[in-house]
């Protein structure tokens, strides 16, 4: 446990002293805040059926391919480039603990940015309590649903980012790879949603097999609607945890392969 805490604390410190993290967080939160502001202004004129709070979760979800690489790209890539990964691996610390510690730090920072983003509705609720109530900002189940959704997908996205960082010595390549992989994952989810809709209209043979095997990992869009109204789907949480663990195991395997 102690080595994990040492690595975790050190990585958090490194993220805090890194200027790229602040720049990425500032721009991301600014864009998110501006987007949320315009969304609320036009909310009454749209046919948006989900609670307005879900727009923040959606913004963070779709913004993750841009945000997560800034958090994860230097976790292993910079260490490999500098050569400090070798000195880390000569200490009596298991590579798995190293992966877990660095991922935890990136995930923690992602959660921190999500928490900062959710300060917007809190500020609005404080300044305009009546409007905030009408917009559903006082419904705790909306907060829990959106928060859990971001937690589980944030975990898997940051795991993908750490995996991408292990694959290369170049931070920019790690960032691009992370962006590509997360975007691919989101695209798979979009395809899965389209495929489900198409199958509902026109059932196809073989879709049931896909539904049972891969869909639990790629039906994120469908589940967003449920989570944002406070309906917690435990199987989605379970599948995302499995997926995150799988990516972290892949990362550990790759780290073990690197020097052997």
């Amino acid at each position, binding site marked *: 446990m*102690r*080595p994990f805490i*040492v*690595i975790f604390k*050190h990585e958090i410190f*490194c993220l805090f*002293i*890194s200027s790229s993290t602040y720049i990425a967080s500032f721009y991301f939160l600014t864009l998110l805040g501006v987007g949320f502001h315009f969304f609320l202004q036009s909310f009454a004129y749209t046919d948006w059926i989900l609670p307005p709070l879900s727009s923040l979760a959606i913004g963070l979800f779709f913004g993750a391919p841009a945000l997560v690489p800034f958090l994860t790209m230097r976790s292993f890539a910079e260490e490999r480039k*500098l*050569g*400090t990964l*070798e*000195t*880390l*691996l*000569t*200490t*009596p*610390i*298991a590579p798995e603990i190293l992966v877990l510690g660095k991922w935890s730090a990136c995930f923690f920072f992602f959660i921190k940015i999500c928490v900062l983003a959710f300060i917007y509705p809190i500020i609005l609720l404080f300044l305009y309590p009546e409007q905030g109530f009408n917009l559903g900002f006082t419904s705790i189940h909306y907060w829990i649903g959106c928060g859990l959704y971001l937690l589980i997908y944030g975990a898997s996205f940051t795991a993908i980012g750490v995996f991408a960082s292990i694959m290369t010595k170049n931070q920019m390549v790690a960032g691009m790879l992370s962006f590509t992989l997360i975007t691919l994952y989101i695209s798979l989810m979009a395809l899965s949603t389209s495929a489900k809709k198409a199958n509902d209209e026109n059932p196809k043979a073989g879709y049931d097999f896909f539904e049972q095997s891969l869909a639990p990992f790629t039906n994120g869009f469908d589940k967003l609607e449920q989570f944002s109204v406070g309906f917690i789907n435990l199987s989605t949480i379970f599948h995302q945890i499995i997926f995150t663990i799988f990516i972290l195991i892949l990362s550990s395997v790759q780290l073990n392969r690197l*020097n*052997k």
Partner: protein
Amino acid sequence: MKSDIKPLPIVEVLNLKKKYGNIKALKGISFSIGKGEIVGFLGPNGAGKSTTLRILSGLINADSGEAKVCGIDLAEEEGLVKQHIGYLPENNPLPEDLRVIEYLNFRSQLKGLQGSRLKERTKVVLEICDLERKVSERKIGNLSKGFKQRVGIADALLAEPRLVILDEPTIGLDPHQSAITRKMMERLRGEITFLISSHILSEVEACCDRMVILSHGQIVAEGTLQDLQRTFVDKTIFEIVTKGNKIEIQKQIRKIDVTCELILDDLVDITGKRRFAFSTLNGEKSAEKIIRHLFTAKELKVSEFHISRPDLETIFLRATKKNWEEKTIL
């Protein structure tokens, strides 16, 4: 009852092999290092030095063979072995953004130190490596190469390792900084075992008890400097400075040792002093006998006498050249 049990060597390597694809980096090397020794690991580029050091520090696995550190098999208990090793890699990679004290605190915690023990060891290594006062508060990126090297060595010494592996510890350092590194190792001689890989042969000659010379993945020489001199340099060379007659001197020398040959005849100064160099196959004892005889013969007017001991560079070139030639023949 007297115990005949010998202390366990700190490092035991037996028939270690390692391949990178089709390239055989190590072809079955075996050596051991005793407690408190400072051993130099030499060889041309591509000889397998770094591969051996990386195997011993647990970074890579050997393909076959046995490697033990402090009696613990690396293949079975890698984590346990790493607790006994301090490692300074080549080029000494360090994070530039951290301060020296922050970096050493982080490394101490990684190596399992905590609380008062952590503070105590950090203070000790800062003192040993002369990094106290202002240097410890500075960012590593702002330090000179010499100080960065000392930070790397301080890191290697943090957890009181029994074996410290230094890969090119003095490369890029000025003579003053190299001397500080040597002094540091001398200070710890006997307490800690050092395994040093270096191309700077004068440094190795100055501080190492024994040398292991690698070439093409094999050990071509091993032993103290004296052992290596005996093995690789079959002739002893001695010089005399004299005003005496060359023919007479040669005659007197041949009375003691018929294998002596004149290899150098130089004028030293305008007074007529000349420097003669002779080689003998009969070693230093013969050379010493000759000097005693020459000094008793006052008419030869010998004013100086010097036995040349072949340096490590000569031994290195001969040992690795022999290996090169054997490879070519084969």
